[in-house]
């Protein structure tokens, strides 16, 4: 009988042990580290010094601003585009649905490093995108060398990578909206655009909330794209919190301060998720 009680622990045991060593312990340890400073392994407790240092660290504030600009611009554009493509693909008139769906989803399969490299090469000053732009007779755009356009490049690349992913989530959500709602609206003379804003978006609200939270968490941790595509530049215009953490920890080996930055990301994610739930009125 006693042996029987042990069975579930046998099943859950390996996961719990691995989780404790490689997740729980590091999470707690890095909280402790965030109150310490020093180089390499010569660390000592300095209370809230690191947090105070963050407040007056101009580079950190730039990174924080950049991350939020990317978040506020990229996430809505991507969600909106994904919603539009999903409702176009959901149209009853459409043939080759599967083909379109696969093509739009394909970018989501590529590794972040690989697509960032491709976009970086395409967006170079004499890259293919500028060649097309100048062939049409317009001025070349300084995609990667201008602070504004470098951010725009990241937004474009990230949107390309994630639109299809979100679109598939929305497509599944659209299946649950009863066709009669649209039929009734058409009978009342509501246009497709009106239907989109008055039926599609409200019905998908919980799904939109879900994808927005996922994208927000992803963007707050953003690292691969700015690291490869713009290398944080020009002059820190695309430096994100995630990149600053990497530089602090693994270029300057200031583990205490880097852990403080990591905990700022933890706090930001918690706060942003909480706000998004509040704003949309927790229905779930």
């Amino acid at each position: 009988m006693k042996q029987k009680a042990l069975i579930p622990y046998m099943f859950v045991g390996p996961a719990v042990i691995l989780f404790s060593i490689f997740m729980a312990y590091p999470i707690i340890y890095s909280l402790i580290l965030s109150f310490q400073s020093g180089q390499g392994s010569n660390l000592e407790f300095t209370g809230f010094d690191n947090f105070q240092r963050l407040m007056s660290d101009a580079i950190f504030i730039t990174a924080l601003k950049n991350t939020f600009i990317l978040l506020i611009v990229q996430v809505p554009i991507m969600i909106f585009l994904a919603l539009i493509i999903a409702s176009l693909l959901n149209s009853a008139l459409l043939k080759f649905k599967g083909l379109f769906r696969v093509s739009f989803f394909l970018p989501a399969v590529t590794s972040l490093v690989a697509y960032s490299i491709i976009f970086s090469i395409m967006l170079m000053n004499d890259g293919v995108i500028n060649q097309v732009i100048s062939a049409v007779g317009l001025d070349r755009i300084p995609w990667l060398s201008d602070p504004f356009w470098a951010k725009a490049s990241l937004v474009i690349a990230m949107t390309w990578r994630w639109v299809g992913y979100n679109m598939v989530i929305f497509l599944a959500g659209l299946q649950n909206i009863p066709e009669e709602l649209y039929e009734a609206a058409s009978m009342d003379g509501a246009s497709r655009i009106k239907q989109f804003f008055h039926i599609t978006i409200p019905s998908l609200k919980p799904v939109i909330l879900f994808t927005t939270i996922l994208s927000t968490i992803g963007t707050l941790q953003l690292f691969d794209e700015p690291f490869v595509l713009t290398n944080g530049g020009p002059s820190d215009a695309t430096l994100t919190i995630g990149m600053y953490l990497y530089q602090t920890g693994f270029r300057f080996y200031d583990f205490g301060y880097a852990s403080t930055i990591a905990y700022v990301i933890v706090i930001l994610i918690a706060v942003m998720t909480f706000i998004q739930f509040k704003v949309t009125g927790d229905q779930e």
Partner: protein
Amino acid sequence: MKKNKTMKKIMLYVALVIGTLVSLFPFYWAAIGATNTSGSMFTQPPTLLPGSMLMENIRNLNESIGIGRVMFNSLFTATVYTVLALFICTMAAYAFAKFNFKGRNTIFTIFLLSMMVPYHATIIPLFKMMAALNWLNTYQAIILPNLAYPFAIFLMRQNLLAFPTSLIEAARIDGAGEWKIFFRIVLPSMKPALAATAIFLFLYQWNSFLWPLVALSTTDMYTFPVALSTLFGLSRIDYGQVMAGVTIATIPIIIFFLLLQRQFISGMLGSAVK
């Protein structure tokens, strides 16, 4: 009225075809780049057709990063990780879904909450831990940290909840052992969920960048993302070589995706979509 409808249909297709081209062009561009010289990616008009440099680019790439070795590192770490993680996470999920035990809800809640914590918060302690164990720049450093992946546990638990408990009880009455029940009765009926979770785990490891970048230090241990980003960070970049690398790293995943679309999509979305 009828004409209006045809117009709308044409516009719908035009919009979707443009979108599709935008989606696919970067892939095409990378493949074309892989077959041309470094300079051909920057010409006016753009070089849109395949060239004859593919073999040369691959040879140069091989000299820079050792394609076979990088491919092996990526495949080996991702495969071993997927097999072990799938096993460990499914076992845990089974305990959460089908057993009542002390601490179950607490442990499960801790797993769920940890999904909110960004990976960044673990990376410095992990680095110190691996350094202390002398495990930096090893396969185990890449494979071990995320074996108990909370999201995979959560996914499998959701699927296992639907498995009829009566079948498990019947097998117990027949005298089957717990492991036998798990392997012979429960797992075989979970194939679609296992496939989706396996794809999720494999892609996670295959694409993982920040931790391998931190933990690996020599070219012979690099996985694709680290090798490619290093190649791309050189002061003199051979773009033909880089594009060949990107293409080689991407093609296996695309083929795999086209073959297993359904499982792939539900795996990548974490079966959020049902």
